């Protein structure tokens, strides 16, 4: 094995050798290497297999532009798929494997697929696997498709930090132009951030003999020092992967292998784009052979990693930038053979690497073929931000045109390829002091794919799209570049066409006989480089995503063994006690039915509507008429959307003429409050109505059960608790422990029930008094689970569980306001639509099962007809401890007209029978409720 490492001073640390393996073979590299540079130094050429034909491939580029060398990498038990070898910094102990190849990239068992290339052109799958059914072939094709394998091990601590940041000037790219611009801006007093995607700053500077009388490394160091001395910040190994609305730039900062990258959401007042340009590959026969590489890549390998890619190098270039670069390679000891593109078609020869290059009758033995088809400015971010592109004929490239607000492109990204001109331009952009433009010395002769020419000529290397595929697409009338892209998958690989898009467009233009700019480009979309989905996820989960709301009495509940769980965003007791949850819930239900249950209902909405227009406002907000409600009284009602759909239910109490309390569902408080605010401010006089949400400020404790009055009597409140003085659906205000206490006689269980609201700080005192009083008569705390069953026994609904997005109030048995209410209210007109009056509305019913049958599954379909059709479904279903048999609520078409009918219940292939009944299964006369 030949070493390709030279003695040239580079950016690697020869004092720190690193061991690693590739496809099972051990190699050595150095600190500062990438996987690709270390392999090239060891003479490895084949680093991957192509996606479709399994062709052997080696690196074409030296950084993000490389489409070929893709590896699965394992280090310390952490495996990541599809790591580009050219951008993965080498670490000691890495085990790399080429993706899409077995047993190795060099001897890939599927390499034989290439023999069938004649039949595997663009659209092959679409055309071949049509008959009899694509689905027959799909599993096999899916298995063949794709690149790396995802490890099944979950990386527990793989969690991306997310940083929100801002600056006055963000400079993207730490090459010559970026460094000079950042320095000028920072020294001008601006808050500057410079980002560069490589671990070491300098971009292509390291390829140069010198910059402004400095050695390249010294120049880079002095610029970086000056930037930081002026207060600027520098982020290396950080890629700007996208520019989003209002100049928010997504930055991905990479750390050691296997750790999650960090996301910076950088808001920049001004963006200076100094992203440089890519060296374009050239399209000729067998241009994908390992050993064919761009000139710029070869120079990067030499300048940064001291790797001379070949000893005898053929060079094919159409532009003036090649001369200096070739001098550098020659100086390092390479023998250079220049080929002139004008002398005829080029063909590379060799099997697993280039051995010879032929042009006409001449052929040259080479071990490497370097190409340059001209520079392509990296304008991806420019386009993300909405900047326009202009075609430049002299440079044969799309250059930044009309600028997006607050953005400027400099240096090679702007088409300025000469160092002196780029530095002048950069300093002008950074400081804001204009400078005269220096004329460009860059010269090139157009060199684009030639349709009809011989051989297999690769355009998209990773996705195996050839010139013939583009010609085929054109023949099949894919005229638009966007169609061309999707039909051939050109530019759709993980490199997103960084090297292939221009060749593809040029080929399409040539086939169609149109000028290249007329064909246009495909859309540039973020991310510029692949980023893990984890980047967007970060710590946004569980409590950090959706913080739980906590009860004032959480400590008290914990002390008596509450099983706390999340219910509608609140951490609430599901039941009390450890062990068999079902037994606890059953006991709590029996306690509530036989004595009384003590329930922490604090999340229940308590939104006050106050003011001279409050009465008219709640009349408009509610489906039911509220204006007729007397002070001290309570009414049950619905809020609807303008579409007439039930949005929330609950009670509303009138405290006095101009003051109401809306008690909305626990999990709907936020949406109801917003709904009220929206209508208050838009369509009403906001100075005459005030909406005040007290939900979090008042705790609500409920005593529900036949002995509830005894518990309250024990509190010795200053109020008459007799049924005549304090009947069902009324509210009284009194005091407890010197604090105002609101007591509402409302019930969600069907039994005598008192809902007591008190300021949060007094909740514990009231709770302890209730528990003490309750103990004497056998009352005990109950959790949310018991309440869910208690309310279902009574046929009380939960909006969103027992209703859906089509349920209107008349489907729930509340049809009167729809017919009688005179004033306008939200959703009124929708209740008289064709749909609202339709014949097959799903209505709320109960379901009963035969004696001894199990409870119906929630969600089971109610079916009838031939063929069987769903006419409804089970919304709530429980074993009722009170009644000793299962109960269920359901929505079913025309349900209220079908009471007593039996209906089939279908679930997971099984059919059972049930009888449609009224929703209320417990105390239908209401004797216990009104007790």
């Amino acid at each position: 094995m030949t070493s390709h490492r030279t003695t040239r001073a580079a950016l690697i640390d020869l004092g720190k050798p690193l061991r690693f393996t590739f496809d099972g073979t051990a190699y050595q590299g150095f600190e500062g290497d990438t996987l690709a540079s270390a392999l090239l130094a060891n003479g490895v050429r084949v680093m991957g297999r192509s996606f479709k034909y399994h062709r052997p491939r080696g690196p074409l580029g030296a950084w993000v532009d490389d489409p070929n060398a893709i590896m699965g990498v394992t280090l310390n038990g952490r495996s990541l798929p599809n790591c580009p070898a050219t951008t993965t910094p080498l670490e000691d102990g890495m085990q790399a494997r080429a993706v899409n190849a077995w047993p190795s990239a060099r001897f890939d068992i599927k390499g034989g697929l290439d023999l069938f290339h004649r039949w595997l052109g663009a659209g092959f799958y679409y055309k071949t696997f049509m008959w009899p059914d694509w689905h027959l072939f799909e599993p096999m094709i899916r298995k063949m498709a794709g690149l790396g394998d995802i490890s099944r091990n979950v990386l527990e601590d793989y969690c991306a930090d997310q940083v929100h940041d801002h600056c006055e000037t963000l400079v993207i790219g730490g090459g010559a132009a970026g460094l000079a611009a950042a320095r000028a801006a920072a020294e001008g007093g601006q808050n500057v951030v410079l980002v560069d995607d490589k671990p070491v700053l300098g971009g292509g500077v390291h390829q140069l003999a010198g910059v402004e009388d400095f050695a390249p490394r010294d120049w880079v160091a002095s610029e970086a020092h000056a930037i930081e001395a002026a207060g600027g910040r520098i982020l290396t190994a950080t890629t700007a992967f996208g520019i989003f609305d209002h100049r928010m730039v997504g930055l991905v900062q990479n750390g050691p292998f296997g750790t999650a990258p960090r996301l910076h959401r950088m808001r920049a007042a001004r963006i200076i784009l100094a992203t440089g340009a890519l060296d374009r590959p050239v399209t000729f026969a067998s241009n994908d052979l390992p050993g064919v590489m761009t000139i710029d890549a070869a120079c990067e390998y030499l300048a940064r990693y001291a790797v001379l890619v070949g000893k005898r190098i053929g060079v094919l270039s159409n532009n003036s930038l090649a001369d200096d670069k070739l001098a550098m390679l020659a100086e390092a000891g390479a023998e250079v053979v220049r080929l002139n593109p004008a002398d005829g078609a080029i063909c590379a020869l060799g099997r697993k690497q280039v051995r010879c290059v032929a042009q006409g009758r001449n052929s040259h033995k080479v071990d490497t073929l370097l190409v340059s088809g001209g520079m392509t400015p990296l304008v991806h971010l420019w386009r993300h931000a909405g900047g326009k592109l202009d075609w430049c004929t002299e440079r044969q490239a799309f250059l930044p045109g009309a600028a997006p607000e607050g953005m400027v492109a400099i240096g090679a990204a702007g088409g300025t390829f000469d160092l002196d001109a780029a530095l002048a331009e950069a300093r002008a952009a950074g400081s804001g002091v204009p400078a005269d433009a220096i004329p460009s010395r860059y010269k090139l002769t157009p060199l684009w794919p030639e349709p009809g020419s011989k051989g297999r000529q690769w355009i998209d290397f990773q996705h195996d799209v050839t010139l013939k595929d583009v010609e085929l697409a054109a023949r099949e009338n894919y005229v638009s570049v966007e169609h061309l892209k999707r039909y051939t998958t050109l530019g759709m690989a993980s490199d997103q066409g960084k090297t292939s898009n221009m060749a593809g467009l040029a080929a399409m233009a040539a086939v169609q006989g149109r000028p290249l700019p007329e064909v246009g480009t495909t859309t540039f979309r973020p991310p510029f480089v692949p980023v893990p989905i984890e980047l967007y996820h970060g710590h946004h989960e569980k409590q950090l995503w959706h913080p739980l709301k906590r009860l004032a009495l959480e400590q008290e509940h914990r002390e008596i063994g509450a099983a706390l769980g999340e219910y509608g965003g609140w951490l609430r007791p599901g039941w009390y006690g450890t062990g068999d949850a079902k037994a606890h819930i059953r006991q709590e239900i029996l306690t509530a039915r036989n004595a009384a249950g003590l329930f922490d209902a604090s999340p229940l909405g308590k939104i006050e509507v106050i003011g001279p227009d409050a009465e008219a406002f709640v009349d408009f907000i509610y489906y039911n008429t509220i204006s007729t409600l007397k002070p001290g009284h309570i009414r049950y009602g619905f809020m609807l959307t303008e579409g007439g759909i039930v949005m929330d239910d609950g009670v509303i109490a009138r405290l006095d003429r101009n003051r109401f309390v809306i008690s909305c569902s626990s999990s709907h408080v936020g949406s109801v409050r917003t709904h009220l605010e929206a209508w208050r401010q838009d369509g009403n006089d906001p100075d005459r109505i005030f909406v005040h949400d007290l939900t979090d400020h008042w705790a609500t404790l409920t005593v529900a059960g036949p002995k509830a009055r005894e518990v309250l009597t024990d509190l010795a409140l200053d109020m008459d608790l007799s049924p005549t003085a304090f009947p069902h659906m009324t509210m009284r205000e009194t005091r407890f422990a010197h604090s105002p206490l609101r007591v509402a006689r409302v019930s969600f269980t069907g039994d005598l029930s008192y809902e007591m609201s008190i300021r949060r700080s007094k909740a514990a005192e009231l709770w302890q008094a209730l528990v003490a009083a309750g103990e004497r008569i056998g009352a005990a705390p109950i959790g949310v689970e018991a309440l869910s069953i208690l309310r279902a026994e009574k046929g009380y609904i939960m909006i969103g569980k027992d209703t859906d997005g089509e349920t209107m109030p008349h489907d729930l048995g509340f049809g009167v306001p729809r017919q009688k209410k005179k004033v306008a209210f939200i959703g009124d007109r929708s209740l008289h639509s064709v749909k609202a009056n339709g014949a097959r509305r799903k209505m709320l019913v109960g379901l009963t099962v035969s004696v001894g049958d199990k409870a119906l599954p929630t969600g089971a379909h109610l079916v009838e007809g031939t063929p069987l059709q769903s006419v409804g479904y089970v919304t709530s279903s429980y074993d009722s401890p009170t009644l000793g048999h299962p109960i269920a609520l359901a929505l079913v078409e025309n349900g209220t007209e079908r009471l007593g009918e039996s209906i089939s219940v279908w679930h997971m292939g099984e059919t059972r029978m049930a009888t449609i009944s009224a929703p209320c299964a417990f105390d239908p006369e209401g004797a216990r409720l009104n007790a």
Partner: protein
Amino acid sequence: MQIFPCPFCGPRNETEFHFAGELGKERPDTTQEVAAPDWATYLYAQRNEKGPVREVWMHLTCSELFVMERDSVSMEVVGSGSLREGAE
């Protein structure tokens, strides 16, 4: 991510805001007969203009509705003002 100017709280991230509707949408007087097409237009039809638009937004953290003028193509925000002034 866009930045919207709440007239009461200043510039804030768009995640704090909720779109409430296009400015100038009148609720039909439902105490009178409203033809089905008119009601459907009120419920569902949006002008959905390309270019400069005037919309009502709610800043969720302060619950205030306000009028915002912005460009639906360039995403540029022209300005914002309270709903009372905007509606005049």
